[in-house]
């Protein structure tokens, strides 16, 4: 079943087209990521789902029901906010039980449910504390428990890992992923971190300027970027300009080529090759990043660290299999 449906949805603020003609279909139980730079419309889409914004055009459905005009408190959707938005005057337990309290669930029952939710996010004995006494990572877990205790059909997460340090972020990525699997709830996740989106999501929508540039599995988005923006934003694909595409016999104006698909050696059977000069290189641990200048276009090559790096200025031949070259739309 379709959990969230966007049919040509727009949200304009005066002349600003925050969301401009977005089509989306998120399946039930899916872990869906909306990826894009700030101001790309991904957060506005999330707020449209939560009900904090109303579309200026198009149609939204949540589990088959029309969402336009339905206030946030009547939607079976809950949000984990970027700043967590824990209520500072309530204890952790009361924070988690808040949703049940306003729905009129009895004191004992909501207390039990809140304690279970806190145990689920591994903060079982923190109920009596205040939000101010918790670390960032702990607050994030409380925010998660506070949303999940309401058993939402869709959980919206607005850059939930943005305020955490790297180590904690990686740990939370795994936990979120496994929590989503075990609960089977649809997660819609907003992030500007492509690594996060790639490692967690079942499908990714890449946003730019209020529009979806590409929608697909992490592998598709990573390996076959449809537009130059996606190639640039998701990872670091090389975009070959028209000149080189012509030379290689590609029909579209631009084509993408992943740095790790290129070898610094003479072409084998059926492979394509280009000649250039090494213009820079840097050591990145497992690989050396070598930038090769081919007719003025800078092409990055990820060369295994075990191989010898040619000196800057020396001529070099780069080669790659023809199927690694992905034609792109002109945008």
């Amino acid at each position, binding site marked *: 079943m379709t959990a969230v449906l966007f049919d040509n949805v727009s949200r304009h603020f005066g002349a600003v087209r925050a969301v401009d003609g977005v089509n989306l279909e998120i399946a039930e139980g899916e872990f869906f990521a909306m990826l894009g730079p700030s101001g790309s419309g991904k957060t506005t889409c999330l707020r449209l789902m*939560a*009900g*904090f914004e109303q579309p200026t055009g198009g149609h939204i459905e949540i589990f088959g029901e029309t969402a336009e005009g339905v*206030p*946030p*408190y009547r939607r079976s*959707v*809950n*949000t984990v*906010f*970027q*700043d*967590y*938005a*824990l*209520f*500072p*005057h309530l204890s952790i337990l009361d924070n988690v039980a*808040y*949703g049940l*309290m*306003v*729905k009129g669930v009895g004191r004992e029952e909501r207390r039990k449910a809140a304690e279970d939710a806190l145990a689920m996010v591994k903060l079982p004995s923190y109920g009596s504390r205040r*939000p*101010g006494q918790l670390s*960032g990572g702990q*607050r994030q877990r409380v925010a998660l428990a*506070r*949303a999940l205790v*309401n058993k939402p059909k869709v959980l919206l997460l607005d850059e939930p890992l943005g*305020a955490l340090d790297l180590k904690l972020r990686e740990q939370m990525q795994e936990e979120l992923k496994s929590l989503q699997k075990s609960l089977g709830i649809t997660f819609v996740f907003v992030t500007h971190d492509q690594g996060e989106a790639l490692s967690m999501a079942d499908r990714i929508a890449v946003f730019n300027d209020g529009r979806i540039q590409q929608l697909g599995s992490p592998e598709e988005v990573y390996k076959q970027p449809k537009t130059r923006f996606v190639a640039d934003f998701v990872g670091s694909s090389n975009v070959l300009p028209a000149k080189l595409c012509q030379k290689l016999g590609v029909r579209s104006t631009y084509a993408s080529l992943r740095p790790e698909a290129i070898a610094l050696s003479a072409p084998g059977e059926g492979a394509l090759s280009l000649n250039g000069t090494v213009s820079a290189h840097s050591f990145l641990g497992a690989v050396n990043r070598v930038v090769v200048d081919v007719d003025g276009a800078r092409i990055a090559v990820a060369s295994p660290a075990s191989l010898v790096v040619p000196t800057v200025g020396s001529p070099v031949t780069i080669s790659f299999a023809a199927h690694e070259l992905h034609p792109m739309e002109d945008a």
Partner: protein
Amino acid sequence: MRSDRLNRSPLGLKIAAAAGLAFMHVPILLIFLYAFTTEEKSYQFPPPGLTTQWFAVAWNRPDVWAALTLSVKVASIATAVALVLGTLCAAAVSQTRFFGRETISLLVILPIALPGIITGIALRSAFSIAEFPFSFWTIVLGHATFCIVVVYNNAVARFRRISGSLIEASMDLGADGFQTFRYIILPNIGTALLAGGMLAFALSFDEVIVTTFTAGQQSTLPIWMLEELIRPRQRPVTNVVAMIVVLVTFLPILGAYYLTRDGDQIAGGGK
């Protein structure tokens, strides 16, 4: 290097500070002192003798009680009106964006910046033009104009500290507007409202200028005191009442100070 030397202030500065504080507060002590004097016609120093009889005299004078009740009533109602209107206004200005928002914010604060005499004359002529008889309610209205400002200022500062996502989070978790106000907004602005209300009460309680323009035949406590000073009889009764006024206004202001002192943490702003 510089902090050590500068932290120790020179003797001259200490004396000047003490003199300044004494200048402000010794006269108040004198008022207290004259409440106990045996001389009733003039304030001679030192008092010829001390007595507590004026407390009994004041207690038994109906005009004192009438003025005191009127002042308490006016201050209470003006404060109540200010709490409702000031909070609503603060909520609108701090939580939403609309055309003329800054102007409204300025216009609300204006009555406290204007000299009381202007507010008083303006209200008096407005009431006259509208042929609105001067009464208890005209005093309340006059006082409400500046009481609203005090409540508004306190509430707006606190509203600004409530992060907008708190209200959204409450709605997201299923609370409608009324529940959000009751469970999230009110607990977070409660102390600010209490402080604002106490200040408003204290301001209203000792207001003279606006009151003289908006009152009919009634005398609030401060007006009664002004009238009493002209009469030569039982002068220390005025001092007894003055002591009560100081206590009644000082306690709320002290309370407001303590309530707002520890409010530096931003509600919901921490990460």
